[in-house]
């Protein structure tokens, strides 16, 4: 039974009120303004949103909102939609190219990973630089990723597009050229056949105008070039065969560091220094400041800069009297005995000796040529026909160009590859002169002193983004090819010139045209084949290169006339010499933190230049002779050639000639995100003397500034303290006796069975690596090592070693995995008497040892036993390995390491603010330089040399894929590959054919502090000096 119950919605319904009745008829109880909206015809017609659109928007909105709530994927990864050919993730590509910045030159191989260049090594196929590089060259990859690079062209300081820039420059050029204006192109020494041709065609294009190209070297070789021109009619430097020279005498020449092709020379030098071939060269060095070259000399005589000339004449007279030449008048010298010794050695080795002169004085260089001619060295150790084209600058030409600028007659000034506003002597007043040019176009990588004065700044490519070709030496050609597309909106000078000439081709095509001419080929598959081969190889050696102009004729040099025009060298109470540091060179890479943190090979100071002074002089004047860590250097106000430098540090440098000073050029430029200025720029204090920029000045005075200056050095203790199991050295005569006990005695230990070799007495079980599998190790020849530091920067680059900056270096916390220990000799009597306090002070003119030091990979490693968590262990291939993930950072291992090679991550170098300005890993761009095969270490873990484990693995894999045993050439550590003198050999002791095994069995091989029983896997070779008796 159903009930008929009625439910009401309310009393209104029950009562059926009029309002209710009215409302019941409507669909919606309340008024909805639909009609107001939809009924408005204008509004409806004005709107394009219909209902369907509304639903679409709604759906889209909801989806978008929900998508936004999800975490977005990593944004910085840009996938290869179409994978580029030969670019495989995890597989490196190598490109042959050439480094040439006007100061350094080398044919190189660039390693790229996923399209990024990350490592630079020497091109072993090079007949010129011989596969050697130096620190400046292998660090240059970091300059590519410098966040301070110019990112677009600029007019009047404002960024513009290239099209606007081109338009404006073309207009200015046209205006200048149409009415016969003057165009001056100032570049670093151009050795590129294509650039030379390009400049020529630029000139030919605008015949109505006065276009002139000037080569400029920041470090002038003008004197030597003029001398060679006078002697042989060819304005070019000769090439050397240093490996054939048995007698090397250098007067102020730092040929291992600053000469054109110093890397090639270093390799040849080391060949001549190997005593195992029965002879070794004897090297005399007369110089003022201790140079890298001087630190390697057998006989080093510190002389004041003004004495170089007189000494040269004295040597000439000795040689002349022995060879029947005309003698010249010369004043007697205080170094008569050493001079005689050097001259006699030269004479005894006629035809296999070399005399180098470092001076930029034309007459002194002529004298050097005369001596080398008298010794018959031309054609034997010196090749005047196969000339080197790396230095072409002419100081006189430059001077007249500045005069033209000053007169206001130059319409367009173009500058590429040099920074004259920074590096020219102040007396030329270049900055003022430059502002008088109507238009100045500066091609540059970074904002610098010259771009600040330029009306137009053309942001230029890094060399790793550029095309170019080179002819470093007669008959040798090489190519520069880009290894990455330009990172910024930049363009190289040559492409700009082509564009402004109205040519519709790229510089790349232009180079190919040049090479067609050079090779005598025509376009076609044959040429393409030749081109690709050359590009792949990086170098091309022409079969014959006998165009008549290069065949030099020897003119007779009149020594008397030359000696007379040498005149009296300016001397003063104090004299100051300008030199180049191994890391910074002429300063064109002074913004590179790897190079700033590379310790100077002699002073071990980083991040600064300073006035160097003999320690005795410093003591007499009351200056601190010890500095570094918390000990500050004193400061002085110094005036050089009228240029005043205030509050500059003065440093006591053993080996500096008495009453002489020296200072490094290349500093005073900014670095890092904070644009911090490092050191001070002394280029302006250099003066033109007799037409050439003089490398020293006698017009120097200074006063004590009573200030303190913080110096950051990686080594605060200078001497070896008589510890001959750390560094072993001997004389060549002792070595020649062949008696190993005389120069490399084994360590013995007294036992009940009588004295036993220290390696025979051991608490530990022998490590199993000796007989099975691989047993990696290394040998380092102290005779070959010249201390240049190329290995250090190479290691930084390969192993992502952080840059820590000056303050942390002062706290002795540099992170370098390999360092070069430099020891000065102490007074032999003190060593004999074990007078320890006195032994701490180096001699005033010490002998120097450079000892590369890195993890010795001990078979009985003290670090391994003490780690509580077994984070450092021995691999079954003989390597002491660090497991970063496991490390808790007790630093016990570092304390217990007798070699002190372990480095601790005191901070997070990737995140901590203190390192934000300088450490590449704190910058999106800088991070691109990191080697993806090597972990970037976290805060609080220990790290150290891994013997380039990643390279070992790669080499093993290569061999495995090819189904053969690993051979020596498969694996080379970063330090070994960078070493310009091949001092470092890496390999497998278990491979009977390996070079490292052979080298470790040499009579000269020893292990550092072997008596501690660490059984290191790194052997060193006793340093042999070509002296008569053992010193120490």
């Amino acid at each position, binding site marked *: 039974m159903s009930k008929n119950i009625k439910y009401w919605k309310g009393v209104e319904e029950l009562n059926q009120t009029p309002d209710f009745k009215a409302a019941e008829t409507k669909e919606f109880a309340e008024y909805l303004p639909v009609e107001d909206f939809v009924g408005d015809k204008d509004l409806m017609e004005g709107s394009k949103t219909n209902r369907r659109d509304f639903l679409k928007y709604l759906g889209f909105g909801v989806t978008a909102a929900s998508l936004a709530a999800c975490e977005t994927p990593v944004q910085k990864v840009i996938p290869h939609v179409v994978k580029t050919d030969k670019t495989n993730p995890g597989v490196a590509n190598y490109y042959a190219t050439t480094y040439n910045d006007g100061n350094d030159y080398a044919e190189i191989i660039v390693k790229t990973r996923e399209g990024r260049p990350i490592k630079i090594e020497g091109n072993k196929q090079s007949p010129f630089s011989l596969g050697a590089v130096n620190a400046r060259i292998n660090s240059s990859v970091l300059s590519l990723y410098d966040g301070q690079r110019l990112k677009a062209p600029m007019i009047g300081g404002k960024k513009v597009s290239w099209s606007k820039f081109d338009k404006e420059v073309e207009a200015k050029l046209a205006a200048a050229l149409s009415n016969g204006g003057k165009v001056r192109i100032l570049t670093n020494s151009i050795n590129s056949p294509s650039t030379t041709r390009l400049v020529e065609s630029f000139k030919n294009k605008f015949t109505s105008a006065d276009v002139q190209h000037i080569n400029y070297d920041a470090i002038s070789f003008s004197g030597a070039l003029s001398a060679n021109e006078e002697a042989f009619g060819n304005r070019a430097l000769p090439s050397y065969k240093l490996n054939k020279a048995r007698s090397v005498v250098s007067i102020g020449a730092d040929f291992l560091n600053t000469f054109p092709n110093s890397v090639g020379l270093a390799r040849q030098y080391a060949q001549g220094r190997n005593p195992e071939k029965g002879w070794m060269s004897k090297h005399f060095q007369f110089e003022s400041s201790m140079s890298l070259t001087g630190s390697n000399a057998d006989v080093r005589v510190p002389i004041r800069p003004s004495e170089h000339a007189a000494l040269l004449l004295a040597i000439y007279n000795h040689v002349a009297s022995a060879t029947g030449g005309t003698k010249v008048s010369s004043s007697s010298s205080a170094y008569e005995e050493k001079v005689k010794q050097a001259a006699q050695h030269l004479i005894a080795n006629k035809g296999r000796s070399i005399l180098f002169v470092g001076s930029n004085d034309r007459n002194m260089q002529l004298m050097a040529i005369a001596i080398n001619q008298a010794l018959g060295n031309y054609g034997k150790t010196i090749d005047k026909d196969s000339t080197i084209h790396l230095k072409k600058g002419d100081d006189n030409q430059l001077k007249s160009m500045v005069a033209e600028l000053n007169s206001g007659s130059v319409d367009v000034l173009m500058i590429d590859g040099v920074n004259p506003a920074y590096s020219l002597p102040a007396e030329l007043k270049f900055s003022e002169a430059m502002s008088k040019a109507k238009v100045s176009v500066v091609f540059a990588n970074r904002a610098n002193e010259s771009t600040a004065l330029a009306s137009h700044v053309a942001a230029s490519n890094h060399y790793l983004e550029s095309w170019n070709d080179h002819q470093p030496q007669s008959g040798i050609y090489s190519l520069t090819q880009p290894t990455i597309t330009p990172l910024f909106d930049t363009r190289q000078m040559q492409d700009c010139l082509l564009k402004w000439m109205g040519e519709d081709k790229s510089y790349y095509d232009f180079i190919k045209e040049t090479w067609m001419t050079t090779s005598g080929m025509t376009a076609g598959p044959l040429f393409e084949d030749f081109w690709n081969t050359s590009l792949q190889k990086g170098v091309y050696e022409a079969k014959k290169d006998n165009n008549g102009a290069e065949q030099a004729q020897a003119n007779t040099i009149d020594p008397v006339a030359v000696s007379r025009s040498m005149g009296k060298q300016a001397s003063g109470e104090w004299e100051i010499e300008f030199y180049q540091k191994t890391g910074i060179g002429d300063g064109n890479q002074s913004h590179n933190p790897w190079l700033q943190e590379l310790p100077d090979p002699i002073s071990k100071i980083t991040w600064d230049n300073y006035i160097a002074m003999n320690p005795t002089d410093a003591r007499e004047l009351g200056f601190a002779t010890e500095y570094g*860590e918390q000990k500050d250097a004193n400061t002085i106000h110094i005036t050089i050639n009228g240029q005043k430098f205030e509050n500059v540090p003065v440093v006591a440098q053993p080996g500096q000639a008495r009453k002489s000073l020296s200072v490094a050029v290349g500093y005073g430029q900014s670095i890092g995100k904070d644009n911090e200025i490092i050191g001070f720029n002394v280029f302006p204090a250099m003066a033109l003397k007799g037409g050439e920029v003089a490398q020293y000045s006698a017009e120097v005075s200074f006063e004590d500034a009573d200030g303190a200056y913080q110096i950051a050095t990686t080594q605060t203790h200078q001497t070896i303290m008589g510890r001959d199991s750390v560094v072993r050295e001997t004389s060549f005569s002792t070595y020649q006796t062949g008696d190993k006990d005389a120069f490399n005695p084994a360590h013995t230990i007294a036992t009940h069975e009588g004295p036993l070799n220290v390696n025979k007495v051991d608490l530990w079980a022998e490590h199993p690596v000796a007989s099975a599998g691989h047993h990696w190790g290394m040998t380092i020849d102290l005779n070959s090592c010249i201390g240049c530091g190329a290995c250090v920067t190479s290691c930084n680059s390969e192993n992502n070693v952080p840059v820590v900056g000056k303050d*942390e270096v002062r706290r002795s916390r540099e992170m370098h995995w390999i360092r070069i220990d430099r020891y000065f000799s102490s007074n032999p009597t003190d060593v004999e008497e074990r007078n320890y306090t006195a032994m701490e002070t180096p001699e005033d003119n010490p002998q120097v040892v450079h000892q590369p030091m890195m993890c010795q990979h001990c078979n009985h490693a003290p670090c391994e036993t003490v780690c509580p968590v077994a984070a450092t262990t021995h691999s079954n291939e003989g390597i002491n390995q660090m497991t970063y993930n496991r490390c*808790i950072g007790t630093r016990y291992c*570092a304390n217990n390491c007798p070699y002190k090679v372990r480095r601790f991550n*005191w901070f997070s170098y990737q995140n901590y603010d203190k390192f934000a300005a300088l450490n590449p890993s704190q910058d999106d761009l800088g991070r691109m330089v990191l080697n993806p095969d090597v972990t970037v270490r976290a805060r*609080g873990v220990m790290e150290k040399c891994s013997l380039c484990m990643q390279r070992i693995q790669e080499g093993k894999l290569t061999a495995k894929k090819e189904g053969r045993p690993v051979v020596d050439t498969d694996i080379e550590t970063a330090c070994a590959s960078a070493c310009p003198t091949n001092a470092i050999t890496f390999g497998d002791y278990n491979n009977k054919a390996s070079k490292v095994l052979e080298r470790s069995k040499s009579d000269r091989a020893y292990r550092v502090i072997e008596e501690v029983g660490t059984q290191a896997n790194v052997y060193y070779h006793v340093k042999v000096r070509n002296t008569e008796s053992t010193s120490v």
Partner: protein
Amino acid sequence: MQQEAAIREPLILGEKTYGQITDDVLKPVVGKANRSWWIAFGIAAIMALWGIGCILYLLGTGVGTWGLNKTVGWAWDITNFVWWVGIGHAGTLISAVLLLFRQKWRMAINRSAEAMTIFAVMMAAVWPGIHMGRIWLAYFVFPLPNTFGSLWVNFNSPLLWDVFAISTYFSVSLVFWYIGLIPDFATIRDKVTQTVPKKVYSLLSFGWTGNAKAWNRFEEISLVLAGLATPLVFSVHSIVSMDFATSVIPGWHTTIFPPYFVSGAVFSGFAMVQTLLIIMRKVMNLENYITIKHIEYMNIVIIVTGSIVGVAYLTELFISWYSGVEYEAYAFLNRATGPYWWSYWAMMTCNVISPQVFWFKKLRTNIIFTFFMSIIVNIGMWFERFVIIVTSLHRDYLPSSWTMFHPTYIDIGCFIGTIGIFFVLFLLFARFFPVLPLNELKTILRSSGEQYKKNTEDATQH
């Protein structure tokens, strides 16, 4: 009950009654803290907070905020660690070894000495923790089962032995100390009237009833724990010394380190006990319990252990010359004459030369002088560890790496911080815990009916 010759001077002076002992010891616990306590606590708390701030900054930024470098990887951190561990030794020695030898005079000092041990070991444990580069992975040092396969700790490493030695030592000391406290907590429980403290102390006293069976068990467990703790006194510092002795660093690689470190630890521990108790007996009016006799006994321990340490120093010097090892010889020559000569001579003066004045009875019974000497010895022992750690490391085998160590404000702050935390803990202990084992003390009280009568007469006269 203790039987002693009547002619012997009693261990507790002032002719105390049992009730007076209870009142004297519990006065600070049941009463209000005095001004000097608050001042001392305030200073200690500020030091502690500053130190904690420095430690937090250190943990947040990195070990680089200390002055360590590539050559000197340990300096103040491990110096402080060894110093604090050494200080800790006296407590265990007093309570365990002297208990086994039935030296009753220990009762006046053992409670505070043990408290000092506990707090010192806690402070010591701070250092190995915060000196780690990655403290958040500190659990790696424990041999825990893990999912990494055969990943295990390195049993060859003395640092790992340290972990075991210190943690064992700490736990045994803590248990020993706590067991001793139980009857005294019960006494407080019975004394206090406020509800909350009564609850707390009754919890702490574990329901102690004080019946004969309980006392019997108490005595037995004390003996057992003393037997356990005694070898630990020797093992802990021997193992700490092996951190150095097993290394290859000249100046560390020394076989005499274990006995030399243990005697040094006892030496410094007693000095710290003197420092604390001389103040405490004065502030808390405990002169009748901690008497000149106690101070003299401890001074005798100081002179004996100080002389052992002195012999060890001279032995080291002799062996470094006699061994003919160049590096060893230089390490010791460098200690005495190198750039850190001042720390070596500070150590020699404070540890070897100055304690010899205690041969004079007049001086070893002089409270002011003893206090002064206890500070000197504490300084000297800190320098001993500094000399061993820093001057050995800063110039080892390769002269190219020789450096100096320069402490930063954070080094200093962290050190002062641990001193602050230590004193905060000790002051809290003095305020809320019975500083003397009052129930045990009653066993050595020599009392008689005459004395009781005399006492009551004195009381009625006043």
